């Protein structure tokens, strides 16, 4: 398959970008931040996303979605990255929709997928329990109780947790490898294949008693949550997929999420670079356009090179996910997420630096890109996590 968007995908990207530039300019993000808005994104915008078929991009047509693939989700996310539009797209339209579509029971799919596609239902994945992403190092337990499960534990960086209708919670129902401590401070124990055992995913309505949510504003003005589950009781049919079988589901859904998030990072990097390049061509100092200085030319050319490499591997990894049936961890996803994180980091760093003093002001917009890149880098595993995962999956 050519590593090029086809005409439909191209058009989707262009229309998503046009729509977002018009309806979610950076000034809107700034206004939301400054007003202390408790939701953190525009519900009207999300409804219009749904009307355009974007909220249901990964939901099968039978459930009212657009029935498209990871590449399409990626081009939408790229537009989100370019405009920094806050939205529940990744949590709901990508991760939630993927988990339910691939692994939901008929009842779960009927109940939730059409509502997701129509913009009426939001989901949030409650996974990480410490500062660094460790998807299979879980202390949160789901203990069989009263015909269902009792959930106890804490989660952090639950993006959109404060507005989600359904929390998708990863908890331990079985033991991992015998003798292995579930103590999160056990730093020697890296997440190996065996750690995927004994994990169950559960669908928990946010309003369930015992769910205590602390809304947290992040550096990039988006909002995540810390959630404490204290004796949260859910019925048996809250289980998504098989009991103790959540590890494999999670692996695949996370890979889709990471692949799409890579597009957001690429969009952030592209926009930061475009603005910086424009500045190099107009700013005058020392009697010259600063873009004439060779040092800046070389750094811009180097950054362009990194962007092109990242662009190619992100698209290829998304195509790979669309080509194959869900079947285990995909190393290309880790390669793409690692590169996307590092390329975005470079692009925003050069973005601020090359703008000089003005780049450091809040009034100027380039700083928003730097802050968002940091969050997107960290979410679902940073470059270090994914370089390690690549090596592990490649046998060393």
């Amino acid at each position, binding site marked *: 398959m050519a590593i090029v968007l086809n005409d439909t995908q191209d058009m989707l990207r262009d229309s998503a970008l046009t729509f977002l530039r018009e309806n979610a300019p950076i000034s809107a993000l700034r206004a939301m931040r400054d007003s202390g808005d408790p939701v953190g994104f525009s519900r009207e915008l999300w409804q219009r996303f749904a009307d355009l078929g974007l909220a249901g991009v990964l939901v099968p047509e039978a459930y009212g979605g657009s029935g498209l693939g990871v590449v399409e989700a990626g081009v939408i996310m790229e537009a989100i990255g370019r405009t920094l539009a806050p939205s529940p797209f990744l949590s709901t339209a990508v991760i939630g929709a993927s988990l339910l579509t691939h692994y939901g029971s008929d009842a779960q799919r009927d109940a939730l997928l059409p509502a997701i596609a129509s913009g009426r239902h939001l989901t949030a994945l409650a996974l990480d329990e410490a500062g660094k992403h460790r998807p299979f190092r879980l202390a949160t337990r789901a203990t069989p109780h009263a015909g269902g499960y009792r959930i106890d534990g804490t989660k952090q960086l639950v993006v959109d947790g404060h507005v989600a209708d359904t929390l998708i919670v990863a908890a331990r129902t079985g033991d991992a490898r015998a003798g292995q401590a579930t103590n999160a401070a056990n730093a020697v124990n890296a997440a190996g294949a065996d750690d995927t055992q004994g994990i169950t995913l559960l669908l928990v309505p946010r309003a369930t008693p015992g769910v205590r949510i602390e809304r947290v504003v992040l550096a990039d003005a988006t909002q995540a949550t810390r959630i404490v589950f204290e004796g949260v009781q859910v019925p048996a049919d809250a289980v998504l997929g098989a009991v103790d079988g959540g590890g494999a589901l999670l692996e695949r859904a996370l890979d889709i999420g990471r692949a799409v998030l890579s597009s957001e990072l690429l969009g952030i990097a592209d926009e930061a670079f475009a603005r910086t390049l424009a500045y190099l061509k107009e700013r005058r100092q020392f009697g010259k356009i600063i873009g004439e200085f060779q040092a800046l030319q070389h750094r811009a*050319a180097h950054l362009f090179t990194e962007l*092109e490499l990242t662009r190619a591997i992100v698209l290829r990894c998304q195509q790979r996910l669309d080509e194959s049936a869900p079947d285990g961890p995909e190393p290309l996803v880790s390669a793409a997420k690692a590169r996307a994180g590092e390329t975005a980091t470079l692009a925003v760093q050069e973005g601020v630096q090359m703008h000089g003093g003005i780049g450091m002001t809040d009034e100027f917009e380039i700083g928003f890109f730097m802050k968002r890149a940091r969050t997107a880098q960290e979410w679902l595993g940073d470059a270090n996590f994914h370089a390690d995962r690549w090596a592990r999956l490649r046998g*060393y």
Partner: protein
Amino acid sequence: MEDLETFRQQTHAWLQDNCPPEMRQPVQDDEDICWGGRKFRFRSEAQRQWLERMAERGWTVPEWPREYGGGGLSREQAKILREEMQRLGCRVPLQSFGISMLGPALLKYGSEAQKREHLPKIARGEIRWCQGYSEPNAGSDLAALQTRAEDRGGHFVVNGQKIWTSYANRADWIFCLVRTDFSAQKHTGISFLLFDMETPGVTTRPIVLISGKSPFCETFFDDVVVPRDQLVGELNGGWEIAKYLLTHERDMISAIGSRGFRQPLGRHAAKAIGTDAAGRLDEPMLRAQLARFEIDEAAFGFAGERVRDLAKQGEGIAAFSSVLKYYGAELNKRRYELLMSIGGSDALEWESERSHQGATARAWLRTKANSIEGGTSEVQLNIVAKRILGLPGA
């Protein structure tokens, strides 16, 4: 125009019948390559036969016109030929700068007489060419070259020196950039000459590199007489031809970056060094470097593939070869730094049988030239900045 599927079948059949089994083994070293030329000694009857048979069909230069010794194949047919050769493991029968660089330039700029004189001999591997471009004082700034060619009417008299002439001591003819107008601005006084390396006044001296012996030479011209009809294109119009040729050279070199080591580097390291109880390479810092390298290597491969895909759709990015050359060269240097690190003190051996006469160490040193030859990394970045990004400046 015959059906492509039929062509594929016929090609496959012909290759099966005519490619000697010995020519289906992978090339082991430089000595295995068939360069052709008057001084070339075939390694075996099979090598000679293979060249002869392919040359007879014009398949040493499949896409060149038939009247110049080429195969007259279309792009699709040439692709099919390459694929079928790959499928059967057939070696390329002839490699030369005549094929990759001079030939395309003559096809575009040469006179009819020049094409008929030189192209068939390139196609048959009878004449081997070398490239006279760089000089001690004209490397990155090639247009500053000073080798002088005085116009005496029916001939030129050439005096000067070239450096980095690959295989000059084995070549039969040279294509050479000379200055024919010293009063003009530097780019506009350059001409493109062809002449025989046996002409009186031509001498060569091999250059030893930090990696040991190399194909590079210094080449000296002492009152060398060159007939006028060996001027290609216009007098003082040689710079355009030189630039055209340089893009082909750049494409050739950027292929280096994607030429992978036989086994993925990480697994090679795991075998060579060993792993811990969790199956991880027993050198954690090196492991991190290897992962980063492999990821970049994969991305580089996809970037090249993507731009070829774009070009097929008519959306290629101009000057992208500079992006690939820049990154590919730096990637290759990283590859060999990692290989040396993996090998440790074993890789430091320089002369032993065990180390194949210091193969890894020599290769590591040789790669340092990748970011210098064919246009330095710095020059490539200049090109990307100006031609792709549109940044200002000459």
